[in-house]
């Protein structure tokens, strides 16, 4: 611990703390602009200057580590004057005329800093240089005229997201933020995660949807969890007049630490599907709006008449509570042998099957942060589960190595040290081949006997189309790593071959990805409640086998064409959905239900974290909650649902520890 004095206040902080953070712990506010608690200190704006006893000049407190006995003053006359001068320089650099900026009036950190210094004006006038505004991006606008060159966006893009799209071009007063080699943002390598917009202190990066929709203080902020994919990012839903204005990443989020992907941040505010706001029933071949009572009694009588002949399918975006109720209603009460999810267990079933003999064999997402080698096999993490990708992408420039193995190519390949394009269905041969090379070269961390190693290598080369040299390089890179992580996805799980998981696990043990302390093997799964669905046993392929009634609780999910075709074969189709789709077009009864932000519940993410989503907006008048509809069906058929989800998810052994 180091003892320092700030504004005559004695404080003690750990060594290595910056003066700025030390002051924060003592409740002393030092104005700052380029500093952001999730980014490495940069010392660019100089607004955080302080007086240090014995120092010749004022020093930037954001980059200054504490020293024992240091005496710091933050509010002396000369510091205040300097701060005002620095702000005057920032204002006079570009077009900082507040009346026509959407962040003016509370959301601009530059303006707030000037108010903090009680500045009524700035004495230096601008140079009137004009910068082009980049409006090519679908979600935000880059206006360099309002930029103060704090480089928060540049740092966020590189340090946090690992995409390195944004950078600074030109020098001095002509410096501008550019994408890639100064190409329009909309045509750049930007992956549209919007983190840069979230960290921008001024109006230089403007969110297209939420701009001019009200200042933060007029918005209601509801903390929740993204229902997009199984990563389970913490979000803040910003609401005004029962409308979602913007989604922000929650800096306090345990999984994502403030980061979000394009889908999490922008899909909810650019939703274009047509909402279903009243129950509908097919009469004389046409769907007509009916009362809830009429719709529900029709559904109840159909279900009662066709007991034992029902197939039920639910979205994995629904809460665990809803999925549990769904499973109980159809599997137990209506004795249906065909209760599954819209994902049909593709990303999870084989993993859970393997877990029955290897409980908790998967690791936690956090292992990705410290991995020195990541092997992605059958997992296009650039396309789905993006935020999990950020966790290691940002380390690639610091030496973390990436191996991608997939028949299809992806953007991730360009960042990979080794990218193997394998023949479809050759994964088992490849994994065994990798094991064999490691055993043959004596690089294994644990003993493994493979008498036919030579044959396995030969077979791997033949089946995968990968050269022997590539195979050896991959095996050596993996085996020589200190903290390797193996990440697998649908490319592997969709094959539903348990031996694939077994061999991957063996490989992970062999290279030390999995040992008594580390758990560096994980699958990325699918939608937000993929894991819950498989734990509830809702992970079988959906194929009608004489069932007459199909009950599809799809909520706000998208339904694939193939599933729609299969479900439409039923002689009676009930669809519980929020939006119109090809499936609802085929329905005999449509029951309108809430979307993710209109309901509460629990979601279990890919590494077993049980998280709560919160209700942010109120549903349209005739729309009911997913679980309410299920409970009412039970009531109308003289049943009651216990729906004890905490107990229900323990029915099967889980591949990850739940917490």
């Amino acid at each position: 611990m180091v003892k320092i004095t700030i504004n005559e206040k004695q404080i003690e902080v750990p060594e290595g703390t910056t003066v700025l953070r030390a002051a924060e712990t003592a409740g002393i506010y030092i104005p700052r602009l380029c500093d952001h608690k999730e980014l490495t200190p940069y010392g660019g704006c100089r607004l955080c200057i302080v007086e240090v006893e014995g120092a010749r000049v004022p020093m930037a407190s954001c980059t200054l580590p504490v020293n024992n006995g240091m005496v710091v003053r933050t509010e002396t006359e000369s510091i205040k004057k300097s701060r005002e001068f620095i702000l005057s320089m920032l204002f006079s650099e570009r077009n900082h005329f507040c009346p026509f900026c959407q962040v003016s009036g509370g959301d601009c950190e530059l303006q707030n800093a000037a108010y903090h210094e009680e500045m009524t004006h700035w004495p230096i006038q601008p140079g009137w240089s004009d910068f082009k505004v980049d409006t090519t991006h679908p979600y935000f606008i880059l206006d360099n005229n309002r930029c103060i060159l704090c480089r928060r966006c540049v740092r966020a893009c590189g340090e946090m997201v690992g995409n390195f799209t944004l950078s600074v071009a030109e020098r001095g007063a002509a410096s501008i933020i550019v994408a890639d080699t100064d190409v329009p943002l909309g045509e750049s390598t930007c992956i549209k995660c919007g983190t840069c917009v979230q960290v921008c202190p001024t109006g230089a990066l403007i969110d297209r949807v939420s701009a001019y929709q009200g200042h933060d203080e007029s918005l209601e902020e509801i903390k929740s969890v993204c229902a997009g994919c199984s990563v389970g990012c913490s979000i803040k839903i910003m609401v005004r007049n029962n409308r979602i204005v913007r989604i922000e990443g929650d800096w306090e989020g345990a999984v994502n630490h403030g980061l979000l992907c394009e889908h999490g941040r922008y899909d909810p505010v650019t939703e274009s599907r047509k909402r279903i706001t009243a129950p509908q029933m097919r009469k004389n071949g046409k769907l007509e709006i009916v009362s809830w009572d009429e719709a529900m009694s029709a559904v109840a009588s159909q279900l009662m008449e066709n007991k034992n002949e029902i197939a039920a399918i639910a979205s994995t975006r629904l809460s665990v509570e809803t999925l549990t109720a769904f499973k109980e209603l159809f599997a137990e009460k209506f004795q249906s042998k065909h209760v599954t999810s819209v994902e049909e267990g593709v990303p999870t079933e084989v993993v859970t099957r393997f877990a029955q003999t290897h409980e908790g064999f998967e690791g936690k997402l956090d292992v990705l942060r410290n991995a020195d080698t990541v092997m992605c096999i059958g997992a296009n993490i650039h396309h789905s589960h993006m935020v999990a990708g950020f966790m290691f992408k940002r380390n690639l420039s610091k030496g973390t190595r990436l191996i991608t193995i997939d028949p299809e190519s992806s953007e991730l390949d360009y960042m990979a040290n080794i990218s193997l394009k394998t023949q479809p269905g050759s994964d088992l041969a490849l994994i065994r081949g990798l094991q064999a090379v490691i055993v043959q070269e004596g690089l294994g961390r644990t003993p493994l006997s493979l008498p036919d190693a030579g044959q396995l290598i030969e077979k791997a080369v033949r089946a995968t189309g990968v050269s022997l040299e590539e195979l050896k390089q991959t095996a050596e890179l993996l085996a020589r790593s200190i903290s390797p992580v193996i990440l697998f996805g649908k490319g592997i799980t969709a094959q539903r071959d348990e031996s694939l998981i077994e061999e991957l696990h063996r490989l992970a043990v062999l290279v030390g990805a999995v040992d008594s302390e580390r758990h560096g093997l994980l699958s990325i799964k699918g939608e937000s409640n993929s894991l819950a669905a498989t734990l509830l046993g809702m992970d079988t392929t959906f194929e009608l086998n004489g069932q007459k009634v199909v009950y599809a609780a799809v909520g706000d999910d998208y339904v694939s064409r193939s599933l729609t075709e299969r479900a439409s074969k039923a002689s009676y189709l009930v669809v519980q959905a929020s939006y119109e789709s090809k499936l609802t077009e085929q329905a005999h009864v449509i029951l309108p239900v809430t979307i993710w932000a209109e309901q509460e519940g629990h979601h279990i993410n890919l590494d077993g974290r049980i998280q709560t989503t919160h209700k942010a907006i109120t549903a349209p008048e005739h729309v009911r909650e997913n679980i309410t509809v299920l409970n009412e069906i039970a009531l109308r058929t003289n049943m009651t649902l216990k729906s004890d989800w905490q107990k229900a998810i323990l029915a099967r052994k889980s591949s990850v520890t739940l917490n």
Partner: protein
Amino acid sequence: MNKPKIASDWMCGCAGCHMSLLDMDERILQVIELADLRSTPITDLKEPDESGVDVGVLEGGINNSANEEVAHKMRKRAKILVALGDCAVFGGVPAMRNFCGVEAALRQAYMDADSNEPGSQIPNDPELATMTKTRAIHEVVPVDFNVPGCPPDADVIFHVLAELAQGRKPELKNDLLHWH
């Protein structure tokens, strides 16, 4: 009793700051009780007394030779000069034209805009004021108090005038400090 004299005028602004002044409603009577309101653009007397006033208030920035004259006259005749509103303090919205220059702005306004008759010309009557770059008042004459806001709230204007009329320095902070 000799009440302090206040005069005001407007230059390159939109008159919004003077509208905001009127927004103080019945409190304007309190101001008149405390001070002698002399020339303003919205009363009969149009020029500050030659004998001088105590407080001169100017709205708007300076973008032509006529405004320069108004500013110099007010500065000469007022003991204390107040710049009222964002245009007076920073240049404000009219200063946007500095990014393209006077020539381009005039061409757009009088010739290139779709609403202009074909063949329209930029007026060049020698009696017209000469256009200049748009400037904040403090770039042309010294200013004693800058009161930002677009427009400044009636509360802010009342505070400033009441403080000055009672011989105090007006302080703008917290709720009273807004640039909009």
